[in-house]
Structures are given as structure tokens and as C-alpha cells.
């Protein structure tokens, strides 16, 4: 099912949660809505589900205008942030609920068979008789997913699906959700504030800020070509240096980089820790190392430039750097934004 949002607006009291958002999601696509809290991502998801009504604009499911269709008739599967499992029902009863209340009457045996099938899909065979309070967080998450899938939804919507889980459980579930998506091919939208999660999982990442879409594209597109300082900073650690553009080159504290096509003037230079390197000789930005942080996969160096700017960069584990050492920070690549 293809989904189209057209100039959607939502205001709560006086707070404008979503301002004029237009977005198209292809059938079978897996899309992440990524943004900090208050960016409107959850509101958009809830409007697609029919749990909130848009104040303006339209939401189309295929060719049908779904803007005013109530949630119970919209045919979406929704996985709530804290799962919202019915605490007084067993896992199997939770999964069967949607089929039991459906207008399409089903045989009891058919429902039971489908529950077993879904339990197998989410790898919870044998736990059907447990109550939600008796299983782990990761298991609850999977029950919530099975419950949402039980009604054969046209669209699967997940609100911070891994938000309430431990880091390692989160990692496994992410991979697993990707597999399920590949298996079922269902159009899926999920909301997250974790950029790593969005980049790992989604076909397309939609980055939101203050109720607007700031940028969207594949993980590669948004990572390689961030179009604003917000996206640059939001996607990961970045060093910022004051720079000046002259004749197609940007200059910052002794380093220079090609920025052909950019107009002359003041600018900011953004470089990821992996974009910088360290060498004893120039050319480069003169700096001295203040601290070295050792990590399993490398060494993070904290340095101060002569002009007092703080820089962070990574070097290989065997590189002999130590605090107090003087030298030059060299620039492998960087993004320059005019200010």
C-alpha cells in the first residue's frame, strides 16, 4: 500500500507539532521518521494510523483519502512505544484479540492456527500461555508486533519500537525486524530518535525538525550529503571550525579544502572524527593533544588548536600518541556550510 501525505498540519493547543508535511511512501518500503523530541515524528505516525486527526491536509492510502477514516477501519498495525499489551490477557489472547473482534468472522480453529503461526514468526513458540507481566521486554515487543500483524494490516507503524530495550536486545531485534520486513514485504514506517537505528534499518530516512521535513533519502544519501548543519550534527559527532571561503577554497586555522562553487564569505567547516588525522609535520592545523581515550576499536584523541578550538579525532590503535604532544591535525575531508 502506497501512502501519501499532502500538506499535513497538526496543532496541539498552541503548539504546532506538524507544519505542512508532504511525504510519499512507496508500497513495501521501510521508512524511518528520525528526529529529536518535539520534532513531530510521533504525531505524523499517529496521524497515519488515525490515532490523531490532521488539522489540515490529506493522507492517502493508495488512491483513497484516509484523512478522516477512524483508526479501527484504517487497517493499520500499530506497535506502541510501551507495547500497550492487554495485561489481563495471555500472549495468545493478545494476539488473537484483533481476529476475535474483527467484522470478518473466523473459525475458532482458524484463529488458533493463525496465533500459532504468528508466535512462530516472532519466535515465541510455547509462550502463548504467559501473561505480559511474565515475559521480558524484548519478548513483549515481539508480542506487540505479532498482535499488530494479526489483522493483516496494509501498513505497519512502529512508535520507537526499540526505545525501551537494552542496547544488546535492541541490536538483535533490529536485524530481526529487517528480516520480517523482507519476508512480509509490508509497507512499514517507524519512528525513532536514534540515528544509528534509523540508518541501520530503513530503506529511507526522513529527518524531521520542528514539524518540518529537513531532509530525506537513503542512509547513504543523508550520510554522504547532509544538506544542513542540523543534519550534520544530528547524524553523529562532528568537529566545527570557523572558516572563510575565498576563490573556491575554504580556509580554517591553517587547513584548506576545495569547495568549488561556493560564494566567498564566512563559513563553518564540519569534520567527523574519522575525517581528521594527526601528523608530526605540517601542513595542517597546529594543535596539541590534551587527552587520549582508548577504545576497543581505536583511539580517540582530544586536541586543542592554537586558536583554542577543541577537536576530536580517531587514530588506529597502534598509533603512539600521548597527551602533551604537539603536531598538526590534517583534514581528509569536510563539509563546509555558509553562515
Amino acid at each position, binding site marked *: 500500500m502506497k501512502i501519501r501525505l499532502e500538506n499535513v498540519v497538526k496543532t496541539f493547543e498552541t503548539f504546532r507539532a506538524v507544519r505542512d508535511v508532504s511525504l510519499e511512501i512507496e508500497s513495501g518500503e521501510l521508512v524511518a521518521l528520525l528526529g529529536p523530541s518535539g520534532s513531530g515524528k510521533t504525531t505524523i505516525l499517529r496521524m497515519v*494510523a*488515525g*490515532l490523531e486527526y490532521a488539522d489540515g491536509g490529506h493522507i492517502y492510502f493508495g488512491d483513497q483519502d484516509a484523512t478522516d477514516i*477512524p*483508526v*479501527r*477501519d*484504517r487497517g*493499520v*498495525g*500499530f506497535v*506502541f*512505544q*510501551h507495547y*500497550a*499489551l*492487554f*495485561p*489481563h*490477557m495471555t500472549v495468545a489472547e493478545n494476539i488473537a*484479540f*484483533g481476529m*476475535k*473482534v*474483527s*467484522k470478518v468472522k473466523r473459525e475458532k480453529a482458524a484463529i488458533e492456527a493463525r496465533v500459532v503461526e504468528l508466535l512462530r514468526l516472532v519466535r515465541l513458540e510455547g509462550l502463548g500461555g*504467559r*501473561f*505480559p*507481566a*511474565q515475559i521480558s521486554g524484548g519478548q513483549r515487543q515481539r508480542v506487540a508486533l505479532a*498482535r*499488530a500483524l*494479526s*489483522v493483516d494490516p496494509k501498513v505497519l507503524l512502529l512508535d520507537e519500537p526499540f526505545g525501551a530495550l537494552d542496547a544488546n536486545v535492541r541490536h538483535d531485534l533490529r536485524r530481526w525486524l529487517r528480516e520480517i520486513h523482507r519476508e512480509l514485504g509490508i509497507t512499514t514506517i517507524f519512528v525513532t530518535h536514534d540515528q544509528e537505528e534509523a540508518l541501520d534499518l530503513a530503506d529511507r530516512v526522513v529527518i524531521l525538525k520542528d514539524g518540518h521535513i529537513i531532509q530525506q533519502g537513503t542512509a547513504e544519501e543523508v550520510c554522504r550529503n547532509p544538506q544542513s548543519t542540523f543534519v550534520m550534527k544530528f547524524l553523529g559527532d562532528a568537529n566545527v571550525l570557523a572558516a572563510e571561503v575565498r576563490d573556491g577554497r575554504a580556509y580554517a586555522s591553517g587547513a584548506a579544502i576545495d569547495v568549488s562553487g561556493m560564494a566567498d564569505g564566512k563559513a563553518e567547516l564540519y569534520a567527523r572524527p574519522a575525517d581528521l588525522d594527526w601528523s608530526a609535520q605540517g601542513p595542517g592545523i597546529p594543535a596539541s593533544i590534551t587527552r587520549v581515550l582508548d577504545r576497543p576499536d581505536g583511539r580517540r584523541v582530544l586536541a586543542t588548536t592554537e586558536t583554542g578550538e577543541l577537536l576530536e579525532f580517531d587514530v588506529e590503535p597502534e598509533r603512539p600518541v600521548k597527551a602533551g604532544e604537539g603536531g598538526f591535525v590534517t583534514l581528509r575531508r569536510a563539509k563546509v556550510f555558509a553562515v
Partner: protein
Amino acid sequence: MRRNVLPGLRLSLGVTLFYVGLIVVLPLAALVFKAASLGPEDYWRIVSSSRALASYRVTVLSALGATVFNLFFGLALAWVLTRYRFPGWRIVDAMVDLPFALPTAVAGIALTALFTTNGWFGSILADLGIKVAYTPLGIMIAMCFTSLPFIVRTVQPVLEDLDPALEEAAQSLGGSDWQIFRKVILPLLTPALLAGVSLSFARSLGEFGAIIFIAGNQPMSTEITALLVFIRLEEYDYQAAAAIASVLLIAAFVMLALTNWMQSRALRYTVRG
């Protein structure tokens, strides 16, 4: 068990035990002692006399009627007060506590004035051929009044705290309003409803002040058990009073135990395994 690090255990626990002992336990023990001193045969004869049995009957049946009424009305009132906003809802919310705040004797004479055959409601009902004052129906209405807040006040906070996502989840799965109410909301309210019902029922069993004015107090038909105890006292038949009072006491304890048991059963799904 944690070690007790704060000061004041001996003083506070001492005061508590002394007070509970003197004010609550000692009198009840004296009552039980007095009732027990009768011997099983005399005791049985008194508590199973036809007048006593008739009083149990009218008390229990009226209390059941009042509790059933309050179960539905209390749930409806709690629902309206938490889910809907209308002009004056705060006043209605505050009024719910009136039966707790209004002394029972005051409630008793007020209800009697309303429901006697020349009262505001009594005269209308009399035209319809319904007599309330001085009948078991009057007892039931007095019980409805005094126990009204219990169910509202136990259900209301649970309804307020109910996670809206549960309802939304049920809606997204296609449930109709009635299905969601019956299969999701009602089961989650059940423990609170049970608690309210047993409080309401226990209160009705023991109610005295509000009832004696409206009841008519005819032996064998509109004499409640609490009144029978009182009458036996006025007749200086202390042993009979003790015996029948002990029946009320036992009923109260059974209700207490039943409440705890039903609650833990209704909440068994929250126990982690």
C-alpha cells in the same frame, strides 16, 4: 529484610499497638468473649431465632439490591466524571462525597421526608402504587445513599490512570466501542469494582443511622440486624445483643477476607513468573 535505620520505631509502634489494642481490639475481644460465654446451644438458638433470621434476610437482600444498583450507577458515574466534560462536572464530582460527609441520622430523616407518602417523591410514587418509606425498598434506598461513594471512588482513579494506549491498541485492531469496553476496559476495572462492591456491601450490612428512620422497623419484615441488636440492648438482653452483634462482626470479617481474596485473584495476571 532491610535493617531499620530510622529512629522512632519503639515510640511509634508502641503508641500504635497501645491505641489499636485499647480502642479496637479490646472491645471486639470483649464482644467475642461475651458471645462465646453463651455456650454453643444458647448461641445458636439466639442467632437462628426466626426474628433474627428475618432481620438477616431483609438486611442482606436490601444490601444486595443497593450494591447492585451502586455497581451500575457507580460505574456510570465514575465513567461520566472521568471521560466527559460538561458544565458543572466539578460540582457533581464534589457532591459524590456528600453521603460520606453527611451524618447518617441527617440522611435518614431527609430521605424519610422525601419518601413518605406526603413527601416530594413519596407522593408521586404513591400515585403509582409504590410505597417506599417503612418498606424494604426504603431500607434499600437508604443503603444506596450511604454506600454510593464507595464504587465511584474506587473505580474513578483506576479509570483515570488507564493507559490510553490500551484503548488505542484495541481500536487499531478493529474493536468496536462495546467490544473494547467489555474485553479490555471492564476486565481492567474489575479489581477496583470488586473492592468497591465489597466495601459498599459491608457498609450496607452495618448501616444503622440512615435506615432506622425510613425503615418502619417492624419485626419480621423491616427490622434490620443492627436494629435488632439495639432493641435487645434496650430490653437488657445483653447476651442476645452480644450474640447477634457477633454475627454482624463475623459477616464484616468474612467480607474483609473475601475482598482480599477476590482482589488477589483478579490481579493474578500482574504477578511476574
